[in-house]
């Protein structure tokens, strides 16, 4: 599903965010991405949905080299990847339901289908009651959950979650993790960047540890490793 070959990313500012990274993720895997603040987790994820382009190396997603994808196919790629952004990226001035429905509307889905799917997704993240609220009128954790609902509503074959529980209490975090596990069991590839040691240590899934843009550990059924280097 995902294959990174000797990928490096140097930002225009000169920061080396990813250095010579090789990585392979099978379809249907569940992967935790951990590492200290500024390690390069978000950058790695941005390369997958082509919010950034690698400086060198190749990034394959579903067999396609996304770093050389033509502009016209970009939208299609992103439609097939659900993303929980670290900073949510919710559309302001649109209700929670409209935010979640957006990804369905651009696919030209019928209104009936949209309504049904949006309600189901908001149910899953516990925001059914806040359907008509505006994102800026919700709490931090609630906004984070809208973002998750939007990422899963389209049942994409791949789900990228950048710190999906950073603003959630432990109980809700666990619910979200159970939800991600369920989605993963239906065949979706799930990649989660997180700092939540409790979650990582209890789930015992594949854990990839990144530090200073390098992969320093890749455990099959791993734990959150503190101070590896």
């Amino acid at each position, binding site marked *: 599903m995902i294959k990174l070959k000797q990928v490096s990313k140097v930002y225009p500012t000169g920061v080396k965010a990813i250095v010579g990274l090789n990585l392979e993720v099978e379809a249907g895997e569940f992967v935790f991405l951990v590492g200290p603040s500024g390690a390069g987790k978000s950058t790695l994820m941005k390369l997958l949905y082509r919010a950034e382009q690698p400086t060198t190396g190749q990034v394959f997603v579903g067999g396609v080299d996304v770093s050389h994808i033509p*502009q016209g196919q970009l*939208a*299609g790629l*992103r439609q097939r990847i659900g993303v929980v*952004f670290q900073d949510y990226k919710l559309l302001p001035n649109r209700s929670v339901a409209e935010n979640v429905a957006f*990804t369905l509307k*651009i696919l030209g889905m019928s209104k009936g289908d949209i309504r049904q799917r949006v309600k189901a997704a908001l149910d899953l993240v516990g925001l059914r009651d806040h359907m008509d609220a505006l994102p800026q009128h919700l709490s931090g954790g609630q906004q984070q959950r809208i973002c998750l609902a939007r990422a899963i509503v389209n049942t994409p074959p791949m789900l990228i979650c950048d710190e999906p529980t950073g603003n959630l209490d432990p109980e809700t975090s666990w619910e979200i993790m159970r939800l991600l596990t369920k989605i993963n069991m239906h065949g979706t590839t799930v990649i989660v960047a997180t700092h939540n040691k409790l979650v990582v240590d209890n789930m015992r899934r594949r854990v990839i540890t990144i530090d200073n843009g390098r992969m320093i550990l890749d455990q099959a059924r791993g734990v959150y490793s503190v101070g590896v280097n």
Partner: protein
Amino acid sequence: MESIKRYIRILEFIAEEAITSVRRSGWMSWIVIGTMFASLTILGGFWMVTDDLNVLARAIGSRVEILVFVKDGSSVAALDDEIRQLQGIEAVTPIPKEQAWKNLQKDLKTSMSFDNLLENNPLPNALKIKVVDPKDTPDIAEKIAKMSGVEEINYGKELLAKIQQIAGFTKFLGIAITVLLSIATMAVMSNTIRLTVQNRRREIEIMQLVGASDGFIRWPFLLEGAFFGLAGAAFTGLFLLFWRTVVLTRLQDLFPFIPLEDGTFSTMKVIGYILAIGVCMGAAGSLFSVKHYLKQNG
């Protein structure tokens, strides 16, 4: 089948997006429409005034006449007929010398009667000729001069030259100002739209990241821009119509000597242009700036 339905739904969604976007803009909409209105009214108003001035110039120009003095003894009627056969002649009016003599007295505004002083009228018979297009006057005058029976010809050469110079000057000025004004108007309009799009650059970025294609993002903005342009232009149209039918009519009642066209046709033409410019500039302004952001984040 299903794919056609999909496209229809997407089109529907794009229209909806444009509409809600306009609605959500709130007071900003009014600022944009107001700016459009102001710019277009300046442009349209100037056009209409220029039109009026052209009418005025034409009216003055058409007052230029050719005066033909007929040789004593020649047939006035024959010359009259001959002249009428030329192209571009609007009217030929004979002025018998008796009448010319009376006019002269009147022109001199003197109470002394020339009749008392003179036995025989010193003036020749004359023909007053109106041409259709003042520009043809010199040509026609030359042709008439060659006709037999013409004693002398007079058509206000200097006056005509002056009027044509003035017409040329105002035409030049009019075109120059119109071009500058159009550029200014379009700059103001598209810039205003660009500022509103700039306001939503984050939204554009988010839409791109969740998989909206460039076309999908571009179209609602384009429609919105076109709508703002149309709305501003519509207000301008109403204003110009009001100006023409109410204000100018009143003014013409007050100052009846100002020769203005009936104007309905000309006003409609100007309003048509204004609407077109409004829509195009609104759409172009937003298209241009959306493209800017699409490239940045694509």
